[in-house]
């Protein structure tokens, strides 16, 4: 029973790893067989850090842009981006 369970979770883990590999940039360059788990983990860590840094940057830039606006224009911009995307 336990061996069956571990087999299932190993399949799950492999699937998750391949999905992660397809998401994270840099790890797509090498052949999918060569990427080891540790490398993938490291790339994922770096990717998450860079995304969080980007959010920080964008918040900065948005606050600069919105500084001169009142509430209504900010709302209009948000809706405009919703309609255009």
């Amino acid at each position, binding site marked *: 029973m336990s061996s069956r369970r571990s087999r299932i*979770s190993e399949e*799950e*883990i492999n699937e*998750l*790893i391949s*999905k*992660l590999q397809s*998401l*994270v940039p840099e790890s797509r360059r090498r052949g999918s067989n060569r990427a*080891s*788990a*540790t490398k993938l*983990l*490291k790339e*994922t*860590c770096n*990717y*998450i*850090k860079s*995304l*969080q840094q*980007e*959010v*920080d940057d*964008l*918040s*900065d*830039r*948005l*606050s*600069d*842009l*919105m*500084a*001169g*606006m009142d*509430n*209504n*224009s*900010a*709302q*209009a*911009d*948000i*809706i*405009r*981006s*919703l*309609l*255009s*995307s």
Partner: protein
Amino acid sequence: MHVTKEFKKKTFLKQFLLGLHVSNSISNPISIEQRKNSIKLSADLAMAFARGRTHWTHALITKLGQKEENKSTLKGILGRRYQILMARYSCPLLYQKVQRRKKGVRSYRFSYNAQKRRSALKGSCVRVSPSVVARNLENRRSKVLKRLVPGGELLKGSSLLSEVLDYVISLKAQVDMMKSLWRATQVSSSSNVELIPKCSIAKEGSFLHYSK
């Protein structure tokens, strides 16, 4: 994929709007630093709400809600749900579990390093099997990962991986949304023209107050 991007976009923007609206109505006028923090807070909350109920979204909302400066904004957005949410996730037992586990890891590492030092002093090379080294490296990396992903400290194995995957997808979506918002804001600040017809604005939500 668990998340369909279309659904997420609308919810994200609605929640982002609401967050900004609430935090602006609480403290106005505000400095650039405060505005940046309120934008970041609204964006993170919007990302968590758009994703729905997962481990990391709850952890993120709880973590954000524990900071003093965020409490009033969070209360404004969540309303009555705020009390329920905060009560559920400030359970001390959860953190005791984490502390006990941390102690175990430390003592294991200490004995392992001591063993390495002892064999190094003897003059012989350290015979550590490659699988142990690989596992050690992997443990270190997943520790960093656990710190990055909200709520990751309490997970391991495949559940940690699936949370990481989910978190990465949502982060990417958040970044994309904020980029498109930034582009839209740039366009409007350079040209002060109302491009949207009024009927489509009215459809978007009743919490928008347009005064002309």
